[in-house]
């Protein structure tokens, strides 16, 4: 890390701690030199120093677009950010299968779906389908997973019903549409329903999608969350490790 003594980091333009940030936005005002100045003052109010409006132009009647550079006065202690990755369990397909065979001794039952009205199945398919993603095989290809890909637009109630009926070990929920917080709404509805049905502790509960982070997943009450660029083996590794741990724990309790 190129951080100063303090451990604090700031945006880096071409010199340590210069704080340089690029911004762009539209303002609902007609363009003029005064509009440029309004943009400058607005960005200054946002807390930036050395604000330069490098582009300002009319893009439509009553709308102007701006490109602005400024120096942020904020900094952050990057070393203190707690954002454990759910991808930490890097294992190959063979290792994962072996782990499950040794520790669990049976096939893991996994169900995945694109919940709510979301129909973007490409992401969850990338995790589940045999073919996988970027050369990394999907869960269907693993010897120790039995997978149920429920496809798109699966209502939360339906998903929980299936989890119960088919004695699912790990539930994989996907949300790609995020407009107006619909992803968080649906994810939350799923946890709540699982809790209401006393199923929450029975399953490894995982969410995913391009805007998902592991931290956000934790906050919503999920075991893990996977974002853009996730590889199937990262998910498989997490499930296997988590289930193996549970077996340990149960043994320990006996």
């Amino acid at each position, binding site marked *: 890390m190129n951080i100063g003594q303090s451990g604090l980091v700031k945006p880096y333009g071409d010199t340590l701690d210069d704080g340089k940030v690029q911004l*762009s*936005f*539209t303002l609902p005002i007609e363009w003029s030199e005064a509009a440029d100045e309004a943009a400058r003052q607005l960005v200054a109010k946002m807390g930036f120093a050395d604000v330069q409006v490098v582009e300002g132009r009319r*893009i*439509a*009647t009553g*709308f102007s*677009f701006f490109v602005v550079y400024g120096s942020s006065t904020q900094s952050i202690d990057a070393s203190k950010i707690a954002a454990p990755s759910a991808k930490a369990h890097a294992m190959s397909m063979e290792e994962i299968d072996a782990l499950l065979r040794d520790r669990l001794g049976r096939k893991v039952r996994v169900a995945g779906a694109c919940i709510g*009205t*979301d*129909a973007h*199945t*490409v992401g969850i398919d990338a995790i589940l389908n045999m073919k996988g993603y970027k050369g990394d095989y999907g869960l269907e290809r693993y010897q120790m997973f039995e997978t149920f890909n429920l496809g798109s*637009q699966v209502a939360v109630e339906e998903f929980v019903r299936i989890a119960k009926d088919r004695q699912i070990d790990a539930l994989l929920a996907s949300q790609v*549409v*995020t*407009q*107006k917080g*619909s992803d968080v709404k649906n994810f939350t509805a799923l946890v709540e329903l699982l809790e209401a049905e006393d199923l929450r502790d029975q399953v490894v509960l995982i969410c995913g999608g*391009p805007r998902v982070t592991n931290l956000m997943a934790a906050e919503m009450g999920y075991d893990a969350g996977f974002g*853009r660029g996730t590889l199937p083996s990262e998910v498989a590794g997490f499930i296997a490790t988590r289930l193996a741990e549970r077996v340990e724990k149960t043994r320990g309790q006996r």
Partner: protein
Amino acid sequence: MELRIDPSVVAACRSLAARVARPVEEFIAGHSTVAVERSVLRLLGVDGVNAEEIPLPNLLVDSLSPEQRAQGVALAFGRALAETGLEPAALAEEIAAGRTTLAAYDATPAAAARGALAPHVERAMARIAGRREERRAALERAPQGEPPLLYVIVASGNIYEDRTAAVAAAEAGAQIIAVIRSTGQSLLDFVPYGPTTEGFGGTYATQANFAIMREALDVIGEKLGRYIMLTNYASGLCMPEIASMAALERLDMLLNDSMYGILFRDINMKRTFVDQHFSRMLNAYSGIIINTGEDNYLTTADAVEQAPAVLASQFINEEFAHRAGMPDRQIGLGDAYEIDPALQDGFLFQVAQAQLTRQIFPDAPLKYMPPTKHMTGDIFKGHLIDAMFNLTSVMTKQTIHLCGMLTEAIHTPFLGDRALAIENARYVMNTARHFGDEISFKPDGLIETRARDVLRDCRTLLEKVEARGLMDSIAAGVFADVKRPPDGGRGFDGVFARGEGYYNPFEEALRA
């Protein structure tokens, strides 16, 4: 910049497509759907919703007995018209209010029904023809400008914000505005009513929303001296209804694919085939250009592999469109720029595909979709991929050009994103305006060979489909890797066989 391709292979593909469509057409001729019937009512002037927000066309069609339905809603409704002497709208209100029923007039002779319908049918046809004439005159007064025609989407969920966005886009240079539908509307078996301000990832397609947008675009088009086209989505469970609404509100284009609903929305195939036929008859008469959905093959699977499937789908869409009476100039076949940007020489493959389509369908207003699948949160990279797409489009003379958004992977477009996207297209298409005219392809080079390979594999695919039959092929997963059983999927219960004496006055009028 001609590709030397074998015209006999092209001809073979066309005749295969004809043979693929024929048995489906026979099925279509013998069937109707609730959506077709509802659109008959809409054309006659039935609109509005009841207290439970159920649209009156649904209410009326759902109230038919199986026997009535088999004859088509027109006869039942015509009988009631004849007996009550009411206008269609008023009659529908009476029925909705429970003050009368369609069942009450079963005894009235069919001839009286037809007679009562005739003036309303005529009025509807005249209104549509009037709309078409309005468009013709407007385009003559204020031509659209040269293709590739810049097409952008608005999708805020709120029709009034969409209107603001659409007007701004038109000012920035957009030639076509598409209002994207709310998530899931294609699976609704009814059309929502009135102006709407809430939707997810899009704005509901309603007749009121169509009218609001049409008016705004007419005003700004007049101001700019350029007619601005309006488009929306038909494919889904309400294809024919949306086609009617679009005809009445002078939309200029509609997304309308003969198989999209089946493959990508799990709508029953019989339902879709019947619906697409009637909706396209309406589109043809309204002068509406259809846009087919081949881009969907490319967003769900690998674009290099799917190229032959795209071409096969274009042949099939063309064939179905012709059978609905559509001239080539209204058949906006789809393609998309979806090859992985990391692939070496991917641009060459895109040029090959786009030029191949251009040559095979010389009179079709090809609709070229932008990169979407490989777009990421890196808006800077995304803007570049869009630039290469814009270049391909102008080089290969695509007609309808959907402007790619640098924020594709992030959100439905912001007003500023749209301005940048249009600026991108305008810059690239101007600086390289005649580049395509000034170069030719190396004989038997990478580009030509790729085009020939795609054409050859398309023929093989169509042969397979023809051998098995289209419905069975879809059931077997030949297209887009999805399997759809002939009697599965949504909306199957809305398909029914036409009974003896089935009557759809618009079908007749449109054929005339």
